[in-house]
């Protein structure tokens, strides 16, 4: 009785237990079902914002030789072809290049794919015409993607629509990963068993047992833990997905979801981004063997890393191609020819988020003012930046080459010099290149934006601007470069010195700037007044007004290179301030404009004063501290600039511009120790290498009304014709300025000079 009761009781409990388990299981399945449908239905991958470089404008008369154009097309992933008919292909015949530009949605238009022919001559582009033979006055190439703003957890992807996927890709995925994909219910027990057998025999992973659906589930819903429970969960979710969704949807999701590579903390997801990441072109332009390579990588992105395991990847790729031929996805002939092609993986350095870290940092900071972090990392924004990839690589080249050379000239062996460059186009205030350190693709300390360092003599043009604006000085004004002492409020005495520790006596302003004489310029600054000098900084675009200390006159003022660029940009722009821009526009994932950063200019300084300062900065390059690099630049290239050296040679600067570009360079040590270099032999070396490689236009501003240009003796500032004294320089001075003639230049000359000046004054 007792036994019977026990059995009955046991059965009852067992039934209850089973029921409970079933209920829990059912509840779990229902829960999973909700997870699957909810998340997958509104399937929205977080789409990192994509950042584009500025597009290259092509036009007749542009200084772009055929080689440079071809290089540009290759950089954009255009493929050489004998018959360029597909978008993204080109043909080069001597000086002529024919290409088919890809469709691209610019901010202002959807530009369809278009055939373009370019005929170049020795100087650059001579003619351009479209596929129908009509003349094209101007044409812009599709811009390069320079990176994306992906979230902290690091998933980066580029979504592709089904019509952007080459038909071979899904077919290949099925053949290689899941041959029963079209018919199974999410799991394939037979495949699991077979895979186990095959792998056991081969001793390595030849086949996976998971269906594509299971792989999708694993990647989409689950984390990486591999437990038996996970496997069950994965299988159930796969079945649920199959119940709810079409095969085509699942395939498309797989193509966009799957992990295909890693670059630092950036995870490459989806075939769309992988295509760019490994081949530098869109998915629909991939060739057969390239698709097979991606299918190979999908098997295991670190095991099959084509950049590190090329042989392994190639062997597997060829195996994939054979499989494709075996299952009649492709012909035997196609497989044979594809197997003979190299992997052709583009080097990592030419693509990726780490490629322009300093510039990307600037872009991110610009956008953080207007957008939340999630907007940038999730909503698929497209960001049109101002980066000029050609100029950027020239800037990087200059930094790395020259710093290596400069390191050899310094005594220090325990640390390397660091360097920064910021390049702008002054007229529109676009920041077109930023190098934040000599390890140019290192995404770390961004010196260009964050290293606030003492600017030394870069302060002098700003003092002189204030002096010119006071109306009491001009380029030929004679100033005393002699001992100077200022009693400060705190009782100490400020006693500046020249770098040479010498005194130069009475010297014209033009020479003070050219030879960077500290005493004379400090005297000018004191005379003009510290508040006025301090104001000149903010006038030119410095956000925070410097304190009115005399030491500011020698440049003991810590400013970041980008801020120096902003101030000098206003000088190079003729006294018009334009806020520096790194972003032109932001559009949403459909291409609708959200925000544009438009050109804005404000006149901030008297053009007459600015012109005189700029003219003197030209003399810096011809006769002053910048003259050493003259030989590095084409003779007709007129540039203006200023060296800067902080105390004890800790920082060396150069800021200089042509008619079209401004570059600010800083060179020094991160620990702020002396370099032993001056602006002239440190930063200027980098600057001049860069400008020597740059396609730019000479500085030539029209002389503003009210100024005349005339020649003076460089040493004394006295009026002198060319050839009369050893060094004669051109200065711009206000009309009516009286300049004493130089004694050596003959009485006849001086008399007539005086007459002539009277004529001006009349």
């Amino acid at each position, binding site marked *: 009785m007792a036994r019977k009761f026990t059995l009955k009781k046991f059965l009852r409990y067992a039934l209850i237990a089973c029921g409970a388990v079933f209920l829990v299981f059912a509840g779990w399945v229902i829960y999973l079902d909700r997870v699957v449908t909810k998340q997958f239905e509104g399937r929205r991958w977080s789409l990192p914002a994509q950042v584009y470089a500025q597009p290259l*404008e092509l036009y007749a008369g542009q200084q772009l030789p055929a080689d440079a154009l071809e290089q540009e097309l290759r950089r954009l992933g255009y493929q050489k072809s004998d018959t360029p008919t597909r978008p993204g292909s080109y043909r080069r015949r001597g000086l002529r290049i024919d290409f088919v530009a890809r469709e691209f949605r610019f901010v202002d238009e959807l530009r369809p794919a278009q055939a373009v022919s370019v005929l170049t001559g020795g100087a650059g582009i001579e003619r351009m015409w479209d596929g129908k033979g009509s003349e094209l006055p101007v044409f812009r190439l599709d811009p390069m993607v320079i990176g994306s703003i992906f979230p902290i957890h690091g998933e980066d992807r580029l979504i592709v629509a089904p019509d952007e996927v080459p038909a071979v890709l899904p077919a290949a995925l099925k053949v290689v990963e899941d041959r029963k994909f079209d018919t199974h219910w999410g799991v394939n027990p037979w495949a699991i068993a077979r895979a186990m057998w095959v792998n056991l025999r081969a001793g390595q992973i030849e086949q996976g047992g998971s269906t594509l659906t299971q792989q999708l589930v694993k990647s989409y819903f689950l984390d990486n833990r591999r437990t038996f429970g996970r496997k069950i969960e994965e299988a159930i979710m796969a079945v649920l997905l199959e119940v709810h969704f079409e095969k085509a949807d699942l395939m498309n999701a797989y193509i966009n979801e799957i992990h295909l590579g890693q670059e630092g903390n950036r995870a490459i997801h989806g075939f769309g981004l992988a295509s760019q990441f490994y081949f530098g072109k869109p998915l629909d332009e991939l060739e057969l063997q390239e698709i097979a390579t991606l299918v190979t990588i999908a098997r295991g992105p670190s095991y099959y890393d084509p950049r590190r395991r090329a042989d392994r990847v190639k062997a597997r790729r060829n195996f994939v191609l054979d499989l494709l031929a075996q299952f009649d996805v492709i012909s035997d002939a196609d497989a044979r020819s594809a197997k003979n092609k190299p992997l052709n993986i583009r080097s990592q350095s030419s693509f990726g988020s780490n490629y322009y870290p300093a510039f990307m940092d600037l872009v991110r900071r610009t956008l953080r003012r207007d957008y939340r972090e999630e907007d940038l990392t999730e909503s698929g924004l497209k960001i049109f930046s101002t980066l000029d990839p050609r100029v950027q690589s020239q800037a990087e080249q200059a930094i790395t080459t020259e710093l290596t050379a400069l390191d050899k000239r310094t005594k220090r062996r325990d640390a390397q010099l660091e360097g920064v460059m910021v390049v702008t186009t002054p*007229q529109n205030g676009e920041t077109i290149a930023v190098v934040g350190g000599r390890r140019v693709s290192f995404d770390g300390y961004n010196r260009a934006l964050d290293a606030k360092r003492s600017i030394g003599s870069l302060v002098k043009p700003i003092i002189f601007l204030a002096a010119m604006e006071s109306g009491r000085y001009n380029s030929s004004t004679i100033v005393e470069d002699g001992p100077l002492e200022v009693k400060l409020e705190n009782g100490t005495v400020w006693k500046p010195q020249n770098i040479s520790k010498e005194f130069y006596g009475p010297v014209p302003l033009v020479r003070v700037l050219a030879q960077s004489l500290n005493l004379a310029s400090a005297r000018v600054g004191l005379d003009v007044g510290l508040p006025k000098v301090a104001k000149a900084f903010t006038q030119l675009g410095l956000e925070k007004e410097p304190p009115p200390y005399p030491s500011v006159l020698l440049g003991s003022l810590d400013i970041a290179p980008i801020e120096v660029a902003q101030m000098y940009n206003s000088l190079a722009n003729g006294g018009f301030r334009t806020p520096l821009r790194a972003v032109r526009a932001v559009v949403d994932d459909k291409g609708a404009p959200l925000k544009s950063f438009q050109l804005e200019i404000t006149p901030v300084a008297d053009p007459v004063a600015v012109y005189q300062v700029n003219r003197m900065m030209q003399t810096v390059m011809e006769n002053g501290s910048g003259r050493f690099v003259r030989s590095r630049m084409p003779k007709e290239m007129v540039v203006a600039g200023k060296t800067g050296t902080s105390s004890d040679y800790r920082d060396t600067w150069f800021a200089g511009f042509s008619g079209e570009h401004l570059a600010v360079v800083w060179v020094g040590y991160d620990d702020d120790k002396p370099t032993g270099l001056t602006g002239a032999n440190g930063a200027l070396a980098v600057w001049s290498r860069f400008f020597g490689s740059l396609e730019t236009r000479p500085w030539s501003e029209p002389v503003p009304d009210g100024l005349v240009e*005339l020649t003076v003796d460089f040493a004394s500032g006295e009026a002198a014709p060319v050839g009369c004294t050893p060094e004669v320089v051109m200065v711009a001075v206000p009309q009516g300025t009286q300049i004493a003639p130089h004694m050596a230049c003959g009485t006849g000359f001086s008399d007539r000079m005086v007459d002539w000046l009277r004529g001006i004054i009349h």
Partner: protein
Amino acid sequence: MKPFFPLCLVAVLTYGLTGCVAPKPFEPTPAPQPGDPTATSPTQSATPPEVAAPPEPLPPPKPRTLSPATKALVTQAQSQMAAGNDALAASTLERALRIEPNNPLIWIEMAKLRQEEGNAAQAENLAKKALAMSTGDPRAQANAWRVMADTYRARGRNPEARDADARAEALSNTSTPSPAPIP
């Protein structure tokens, strides 16, 4: 203006001329006929051979014209503006400016666009920028002053507007022959 003074100085030194009148700001060069972008200004008198050449003679300022590329873009911007799409017009004009940043004609168009948008302050700034670049080109200067006058009028600054108009008028009279419209 740049080359006039050194040449003038050279002439003074060589021949002892007394009447070299330097302050005259510039000799306006005839505007080229529309469609003739190659027209050049008249040549200067030659430098006497025995005197060293002045440093870096720069070419004399010429009346500005648009290159075919910027002309196409400015035309496009004008039709975008006419269709009421100012944002597109601005981005097209910025393209033109990137190609020819020193051409005052494009800055004038930009100023007109901002004026059209009702941003008179920015329009004035842009016109000033255009003016700074038009030294030696009375036609461009006159156009810049006209836009400037409009920006003043829009803000009720009538005396300044009248002054700007008068300057534009005076400059138009110096420019020969009849000013061609901005393409």
